[in-house]
Every structure is written in structure tokens, then in C-alpha cells.
């Protein structure tokens, strides 16, 4: 019989360890859903990975840098970027409240903002903290509509009443809150006017700054309502639309349930009833029969694959050398998913996109690297590995004959581990 508790953990977390699977089996499915979505007490594991203090952005107060100053500031930014990526990967690995961390990673891909354009690691970290702190979708939308990283990413700082820029307005409707088909071009234009007047300052990562003289304070008609909308009343208006709850439910299903099959009506209804609290919507999804049936498969995203492997092999990013970490993040780049750098405002791809032969090549190299690290860490444990024990460590239900035969050909425990990590059974949940 398929193990629904193990599947639940694989979907809701970044890859369960064998002891986590065993504990969840004892607790049962419903209790595990409850524990995942409303964890008790502070996260002791996450507390060992405190948020880094980056200090000021090196470009702050450098309005006209010389070539040398620019080069030095860019080098500092690269270092800060490495710092926050390493920190986040570390936190994902050591956090006890795994479902909370995974949901936050979902939101990052949803409000996809990339450091590649934003430039400032301080901005990206401040945005991350805002998503982490927001209790529900409404609060998140309110915090992000004036978030410097998002504003800059979508050219909000260029949006003034004299020179409107619709970019942020369009993505608020299309990608963040409503979905295509639930608004018109005229709504986008009018919403753009509501968002005028915000500018960013590298010295103030906490918020974009409102300049009333650049704001268009006249009335706007948006989705049938006419008012002198501003950024906050606009997002409140959008979140109140029935389409918003359905859209967020569908996006969560796409990420946790299936990226190829649409959400079932009954699942959607349960999730919509839990809107706007993300963790409650997730709970409704995980508890839903359609999800629990095990009918749907998902491909692990590269970050899930890597962090899951780190957790299961007992490796911790904070303890890896700079060079090793660089190899891991370079590998993630090759696979197409680096934290803080979504591929586009549309977020990361899904499903078969992660299963190209190009990715297979890169994954083989990364798996070998991880297996080598695990072997260096605990050679004896690894040496005792056989296919059955490997399935338990990697929380794989069962190997197909194909993979079992491939594993049998491995000449060493390290190769066994490498093959397990790249096996189709491990890649597809």
C-alpha cells in the first residue's frame, strides 16, 4: 500500500528524514497535518540559523561612484548575495517547522522578485522578512505593494502621475492576486494610477517612500468600483474579489498537489473557505481526500531536491566550505532555481521542465558531490547502506525494478547514494 503519511511529509516539507517519517506514522495522518500547519512552540532548529545582519547597501550614499568604488561595491553585494543564499538554504535545512518554511518558499516563487534586477541584497532580505511576518494574504499584499524590492523589480519607482507605468499594476492582477481573465486592460491602467508616487531609497530597505506630489489622487474605476484608490486600498480591493481566493487556492494546488492536473472543485471550495490565511489554506489542501489519494505526482524543484538531500544525509550548508557551497549554488543555477533569483516575474517553472537531459547531467554531478560529503562525514553509516536502507533514508516508498537493478550495479556505497539521489523515484514524489 502506498504510504500516505510519507507522501504528506514529502510534499509539505523539504524532504523528511527517516525518523520524521517514523514519528509521523505513529501520530497518524490528521495529527501530522495539524502539527505541520500549526506547529507548537518556537522553531528551535531555525533559531540556530539567525538572519544575517548585512549592514548598509554599499551603493547607499554613493551617488556618483568612480570605477573603483563601483567595482568594490559590486564585490560587496556579491558577497552579501552569497551570504543570504547560504543563510536561507541553511535555515531550510535546519528548521523544525518545515511546512512553514516551505510555504514561505512558495510565496517567494509567487511574488517572484529577483536580485538580478533588484541588485540590493538588503532589499531582498527585507522583502523576505515581510513575507515571513505576514499573517495572511491580505497583510502580505499590503506589505509587498510598498516593498522596495518589488517596487523596483516592477519599475514602480518610475510610476508617477505624469509618467504612469503599469508594470506593477499588471502583475498584481495577473500574477499575484487575481489571475488572467479576472480583470481588463482598463483595470490595469486605472490600478497603475493608484500605485503612483512610490520611490525607493537604498538606505531604507524596510519600505518604499511615498511622494504625495507624484501620486494621482483623483478617482479611479477599478473592477467596477470607483474611489480615490491608493496602493493600500487597491490591494485591499483586489484581495476582496472572489477571484483572489480561488486564484491563490489554484496556485497552492499547482505547487503542492499537481502541476499538470487542475484543482478539483471540492478541494478549491475547502481552500477558499480558509482564505486569506495561507497556512489554513494549506491545511485544507493537505487534509483533502483528492490530495491524500496519491493520484497526483509532482517533480521536486531543484531547491527541494537539494535541501531534502542535505536533510536526509545530515549535512548542513552553514558547515560546508565556501567552495563547496559555491558548487552547490552553481549547480542550482544550472538546474534553473537559485533562491532570491526566480527566472522571471512569472516565477519558476514546474513539472517536466525540471526533467531535461541537461538537468540530468547536472544532477549527477551534484549527487556525487553530496554523496562524497556524506561519506566524509560518516563513512561507516554510508558503508552499511544497501538499497533497502537507502529507500528508508531518502523516504522513497519503493524502488522500481529498474532502479533496484541500477543500484545493484553500484560498486561502492557512495555510488549507491549518488544513484539513489538521481533516481526517478526520488525526483518524482
Amino acid at each position, binding site marked *: 500500500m502506498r504510504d500516505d503519511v510519507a507522501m504528506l511529509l514529502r510534499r509539505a516539507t523539504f524532504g523528511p528524514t527517516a525518523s520524521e517519517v517514523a514519528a509521523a506514522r505513529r501520530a497518524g495522518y490528521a495529527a501530522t497535518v495539524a502539527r505541520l500547519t500549526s506547529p507548537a512552540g518556537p522553531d528551535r532548529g531555525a533559531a540556530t540559523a539567525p538572519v544575517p545582519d548585512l549592514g548598509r547597501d554599499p551603493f547607499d550614499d554613493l551617488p556618483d561612484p568612480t570605477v573603483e568604488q563601483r567595482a568594490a561595491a559590486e564585490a560587496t553585494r556579491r558577497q552579501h548575495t552569497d551570504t543570504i543564499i547560504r543563510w536561507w538554504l541553511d535555515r531550510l535545512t535546519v528548521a523544525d517547522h518545515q511546512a512553514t518554511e516551505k510555504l514561505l518558499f512558495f510565496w517567494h516563487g509567487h511574488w517572484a522578485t529577483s536580485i538580478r534586477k533588484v*541588485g540590493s541584497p538588503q532589499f531582498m532580505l527585507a522583502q523576505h522578512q515581510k513575507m515571513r511576518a505576514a499573517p495572511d494574504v491580505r497583510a502580505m499584499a499590503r506589505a509587498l505593494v510598498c516593498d522596495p524590492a518589488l517596487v523596483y523589480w516592477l519599475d514602480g519607482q518610475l510610476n508617477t502621475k505624469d509618467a504612469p507605468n503599469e508594470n506593477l499594476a499588471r502583475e498584481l492582477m495577473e500574477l499575484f492576486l487575481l489571475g488572467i481573465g479576472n480583470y481588463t486592460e482598463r483595470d490595469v491602467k486605472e490600478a497603475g494610477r493608484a500605485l503612483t508616487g512610490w520611490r525607493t531609497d537604498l538606505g531604507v530597505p524596510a519600505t518604499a517612500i511615498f511622494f504625495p506630489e507624484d501620486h494621482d489622487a483623483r478617482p479611479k474605476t477599478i473592477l467596477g468600483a470607483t474611489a480615490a484608490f491608493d496602493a493600500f486600498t487597491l490591494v485591499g480591493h483586489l484581495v476582496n474579489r472572489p477571484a483572489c481566493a480561488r486564484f491563490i487556492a489554484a496556485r497552492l494546488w499547482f505547487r503542492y498537489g499537481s502541476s499538470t492536473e487542475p484543482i478539483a472543485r471540492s478541494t478549491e471550495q475547502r481552500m477558499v473557505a480558509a482564505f486569506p490565511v495561507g497556512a489554513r489554506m494549506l491545511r485544507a489542501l493537505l487534509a483533502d481526500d483528492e490530495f491524500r489519494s496519491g493520484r497526483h505526482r509532482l517533480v521536486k524543484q531543484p531547491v527541494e531536491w537539494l535541501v531534502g538531500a542535505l536533510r536526509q544525509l545530515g549535512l548542513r550548508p552553514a558547515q560546508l566550505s565556501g567552495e563547496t557551497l559555491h558548487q552547490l549554488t552553481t549547480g542550482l543555477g544550472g538546474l534553473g532555481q537559485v533562491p532570491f533569483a526566480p527566472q522571471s516575474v512569472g516565477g519558476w517553472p514546474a513539472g517536466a521542465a525540471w526533467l531535461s537531459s541537461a538537468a540530468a547531467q547536472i544532477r549527477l554531478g551534484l549527487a556525487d558531490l553530496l554523496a562524497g560529503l556524506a561519506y566524509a562525514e560518516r563513512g561507516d553509516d554510508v558503508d552499511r547502506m544497501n538499497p533497502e536502507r537507502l529507500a528508508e533514508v531518502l523516504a522513497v516508498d519503493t524502488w522500481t525494478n529498474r532502479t533496484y537493478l541500477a543500484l545493484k550495479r553500484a560498486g561502492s556505497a557512495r555510488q549507491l547514494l549518488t544513484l539513489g539521489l538521481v533516481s526517478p523515484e526520488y525526483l518524482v514524489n
Partner: protein
Amino acid sequence: MDPLTRRRFLLASTAAGGAAAVAAGGIGLAELLSTARDDRSTPDDRTDRLVVVTLYGGNDGLNTVVPYADPAYHSARPELAYEPERVLRLDDALGLNPVLGGLKRLWDRKQVGIVLGVGYPRPDRSHFRSMDIWQTASPAQPVATGWVGRWLDGTDASAEAAVSFEPVLPPLLVGERRSGACVAIGGLRLPPGVDSGMVAALGEVQDGESELQVRAAQAYRDLLDVDSLVRQADHREATTDPADRPVATATGGAVSLAAQLALVARCVEAGVPTRVFSVSLGGFDTHAQERVGQETLLGRLDEALSSFVDRLGRTAAGRRVTVVVYSEFGRRVRANASDGTDHGTAGPVFVLGPRVAGGFHGEQPSLTDLDAGDLKATTDFRDVFGALLASVLHAEPSRYLGGHLPKPLSLLRADG
């Protein structure tokens, strides 16, 4: 899964979930080649095809197509400028970088068109943003679709209509509902102790497996198939030069351009239904000691492009192929303190192939009338892509260029 089912599945997974889901890649080369046998409705040798060559990193246009006769060029770049007697003269003002001998030969055969001073309004000097602009053809605001991707949408094209040989699908090929396919090439590198037999074993498909697991398994078979095809196609490139080996990178151009183009040639000659191929060469982000670095890269580009165009001329299908070569921006006119140049604006775009109207198109920007040290673009890049949409893909350009109405450029011969 049989090829048809697999293709349907690929399309289904591409269509699901809107913009976030569109980057579905992962078609195997063997599968791609097999589509040539599936599709007999179009006579192969009469299909026009486009090859888009992306140079990642911002190629220095002024040292590619050199304004050797302009004193301003020499005074702005005392250490970096090429002596007039070394450039390969194209006319009395411009010449090619000395390492571009193959392109010069094609130029003399009228198979190279050079569009001068290509850029876009309000230049952005971020590599990623600027490359996004070229690939999405949307200079004013970021959009989630590339111009080829929108053409795939507009023509309801199948996945293999546009193919990339880069490790990660470029935004160029991403549409709203459709997207191109990503085919991996490059010499196979296996971890120590893991042999191709084990990888092949992982690639065996099992009865009753989920479709996604089938695809995961298939990726390993594709990896081996592709490796052997690449070795046949270009043994030397795929196996001997460590610098050409695929490494994980976010900036593309990780696989030898010659190997990518050799595969394009194979696909064209095999009659695959692919209309657009996307290939790339990376590493142009040179800021110091630029001359040596750029010459190495331009040398590779020259060898890869000229042998590719020569090969195209040998088959009827090849003679319907047009190549376009661009980079995200040029460099500043003045050299920096470390014998390099910093990110700039306009640069030349090359158009090559048997159908091309050879010669210069557009106007060389002035080296003295500058915009804060940068060249002023004389041609909008969307005019170049517009001409290719019209004459190679036979599509209405403005429909796929965000409403931009391109100025006509006669890049292809009227009789081509």
C-alpha cells in the same frame, strides 16, 4: 510511452498553470530527430528556418566591426584599438576583427549582412535585464514571454517548433501557452565509478510508472543518446576542450557553439520540423585585458559560424536557413583603466546564410556624438527581429513585438 503520447503530454504540461508553468523543456534529441519521420506534411527543403545565436556577456561591437579609419576610435582606445593594417577591411571605414577571417570570406561571398548600431531606447546596462529586453522584445517593461514564444503561441506551434541547445530554456522561447524545447548536448561527464550502463539502467521505463517518472527516466536515456550523437557530430569539440564542457551556469553559453551548430545542421538535414533554433556562446563579459579574451571568443565564433554556413550551402534544406547573431549590449567607446571596456549600448548584429542580402544595413553610430560616453543606437533591435519574423517565419512582426511597427530592413535577398 510512444512519441505521440509523449508529445501530447509535453504540450499538456506546457499549457497548465499559465505563465509560471510555461518553461516546460526537456525533449530529447533522439525524440526530436524522430519527429522528422512523423511529419511528412511539409516538404523539408522548402521550410525557412531561423537560428538565433546569443552572445552572453555584452560583446564589444567596436572591436568586432572596427571603425578603423576613424581617429576618434584610436584616441578613445589607445591600447585596445586595432591598427588599421590589421583589420579585415569591409569598406573604407569599417573592417572585421583580425580573427574573423571566416566571416570575411563569407562577406566576400555576400552571405553576411551586418546591421550597424543596433540597440533600444533608454539602454539598461544590467546583463540580465538587457538580455531580457532582447529576448522578450519589450524594452519598456519586463514581460514573461519571449518574442519567439509569442510566435509559438500565435501559430499554435508544437514544442519542437523551437529548440534550444542551452542547459536552461531561454526566455526567448517561452510563450504564454506554448514554449520551445530544451535539448541538452555536451560531452557526458559521469561521477567516478558511475558508468553509462548504470545511467542507461536508470533510463529504463517501467510498466505502471507515472508519466513524470517516465520523463525522469527518459532524461537519462536522452542524455546518453545525445552524448553519442554529439560525439558523432563533432568528436573533437565534444571531447577534448575542457573549456567547452557544459558547466552549470545561469548566464548561458555553456556548451561549445560549434557543437550546438553541428547539431542544428544535423537536425536541418534530417528534416526536423523545427523552425527556430536557439544557441549561444557565453563569456563576453570581459572588463580587463579585453583584447586577448575577446579574440579567443571571436575566434571560436568565427570558426563555428563559418563552418556552419558553409555546411548549410551544401543541402537544399540548409539553403533555407538564416542565422542572426546578437549580444545584450556593446561597450563604452572609451577604454577603462584596465585595458577593458564597461557596459555600453549599441552594437552590430550579424545576419548570415545563403538567403542573406550581404553588406551593411543601417548606419554606423558616430564616435564623437555620444550619449554620456555611449554610442547612440541607429537601429531598433525590434526592426531586425521584425524583418526576420516577416521574411523567415512569414509572420506579421507587430503581432509578436508588443505592437512595435518595425521599420523595414531588407536583410534577405528578394530572390531568396
